[in-house]
């Protein structure tokens, strides 16, 4: 009874008077489209599985561990974080991340602007200069700053010899040294997305603004800056989130007094073998990062962040 029904429907549809005749191969085209979609979906399966296995599953496990102790369910790992030794670390982590991100914006925006305006060959050279540090080991760069900025480092020796200062500046082993080192490492991550979105801004827009009577400053402020915003937001988020999880630079340049959240995680794993506590720290950082992303998304619009329209 049910089997022949569609066939007869189809026959009826075809024969319906007045309806435009369906293309002869519409049915086959649709089938091909379905097959193609299935194939494409199939091709993403390995990637999806990989993400599920390597990202989602561990995060789930992390979450679960953070509520467990040998006795069962517990909030202990989270309650512990209310102690000043942890709250102060969280404060430092965010302060440092905000400061480094802000400095990166101030330094990175003009650099990206100059590269975007430069002639192709000059732009290539400038881009190389931005990228070159990225290809150098992080550790080497940190030690280089140590050599430059420590009490008897190059800078202090030079300034003292010139007679510009009497006592060496304290540029290392503190918050200042950590900030300098981190800005250096993070700057390319700000310049690259900024440059990308600035390159996409046609110079015609600026000409149009000028021809309509805008001063160069007004054209820059009202046309160029808003158009470069996606790159700025992307760069800001990349830099800020990377800063939140930073470990090596603060450990080497902070003189032991700049304590980051990641160091607390490391300590809980390595010294105390306390995976529950370390997981709770990880969950807190993850939730806060997601919270910030959500907030930025609410203010600026999520599509802007990912660069889609």
């Amino acid at each position: 009874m049910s089997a022949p029904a569609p066939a007869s429907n189809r026959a009826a549809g075809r024969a319906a008077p007045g309806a435009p005749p369906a293309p002869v191969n519409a049915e086959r085209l649709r089938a091909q489209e379905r097959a193609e979609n299935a194939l494409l979906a199939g091709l993403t399966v390995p990637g999806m599985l990989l993400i599920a296995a390597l990202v989602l599953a561990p995060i789930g496990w992390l979450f679960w561990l953070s509520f467990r102790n040998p006795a069962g369910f517990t909030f202990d790992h989270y309650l512990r974080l209310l102690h000043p030794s942890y709250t102060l670390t969280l404060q430092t982590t965010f302060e440092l991340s905000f400061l480094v991100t802000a400095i990166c914006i101030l330094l990175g925006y003009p650099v990206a602007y100059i590269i975007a305006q430069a002639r192709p060959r000059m732009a290539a050279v400038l881009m190389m200069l931005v990228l070159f540090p990225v290809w150098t080991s992080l550790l080497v760069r940190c030690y280089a700053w140590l050599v430059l900025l420590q009490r008897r480092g190059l800078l202090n020796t030079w300034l003292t010899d010139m007679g510009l200062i009497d006592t060496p500046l304290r540029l290392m082993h503190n918050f200042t040294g950590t900030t300098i080192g981190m800005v250096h490492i993070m700057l390319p991550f700000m310049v690259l997305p900024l440059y990308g979105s600035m390159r996409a801004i046609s110079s015609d827009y600026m000409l149009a603004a000028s021809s309509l009577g805008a001063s160069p400053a007004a054209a820059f402020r009202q046309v160029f800056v808003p158009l470069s915003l996606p790159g700025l937001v992307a760069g800001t988020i990349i830099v800020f989130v990377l800063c939140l999880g930073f470990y090596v630079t603060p450990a080497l340049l902070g003189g032991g007094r700049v304590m980051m959240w990641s160091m607390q995680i490391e300590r809980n794993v390595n010294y105390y073998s306390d995976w529950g506590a370390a997981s709770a720290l990880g969950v807190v950082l993850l939730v806060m990062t997601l919270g910030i992303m959500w907030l930025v998304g609410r203010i600026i619009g999520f599509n802007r962040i990912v660069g889609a329209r």
Partner: protein
Amino acid sequence: MRKVMAGVAALIGMAVGAGAPVAYAQQKTLTISSWGGAFQKAQKEAWFGLVEKELGVTIKEDNTSGIADMRAQVASGKPTWDLSTQGAYSCALLEKEGKLEKFDAATLAVTKDVPSNLRSDYWVSQIVYSVAIGWREKAFGGKKPTGWAAFWDTKNFPGQRSLRRTPIYNLEMALIADGVPMDKLYPLDVDRAFKKLEQVKPHVLVWWNSGAQSAQVLKDGEVDMVSAWNGRIQAIQSEPEGKAGKIGVTFDEQILVSDCWLIPKGAPNKELALKAIQIMMRPEVNARISLFINYAPSNGKSYDTGVIPKEKLAGLPNSPENVKKGFIQSVDWWVNNNDEMVKRFDAFLQK
């Protein structure tokens, strides 16, 4: 199909049957983990060779980076290590956690000559080192700091300091600087210690994380005075002079600490491991470590054996001459208080 299965089963049976006697006939292996590097090489030359010869075993070496490795070994239920080197504090902590095999009477009979606070029924110190003061001689114009009060005295010894980034050692040093006699430290007066630490805090440029860092900041002249492990300071002294110039070291009011031997719970060759400890802890064998590296033996009788040349004695923190200048740290106190102290110390540093 069934025939194939039967064949496979027979093959497995043969392999198992044939394999077992061969394994017994083979020389036994003893797996020992340690810190690697120059220290483990010295252990091998001083001790492992003798153990292999006397017990007729092969020693397989592995590395450990600390207590987390040991916990993982025991937690696995099937540890691969028979013996491990760990810091004395870790040893005491692992004992408290019930992760160690107890020593038998024969072993305890050998280890009894080790000072009582450097051993227990579950572990025994193998080497002793100390936390001492190292300084740039140029910085103080020939004046010699003679203890922790001098370390705190920024009037007579002006300049930058470096301390380890842990409460361990620092609380003891602060109390001694504040006038508490070395033999009346424990239990530590924590409030008094932290109050005293506040005084020196503005002068501490670097809170060091690793032994290498403590040496580097002194050698570069980044700081003028450090509290660091004696071996690290002595190593700079033996190197060509750096930016910092000549380096001094003193054992005055030194804190004696140690690394120990322990057997993880469930170790595959516990009996052999115990025998190995008995050999390595004999005074004349224990003393040999100082021939290969600047560390001191832990067995009190080692210095009576004459194994260590006279010219080496001045540089060893627990030689009969130097041992009187300092005190042995109480790992028991730290095992029960470290977690709380670390929290408080972290907050102290970040404020």
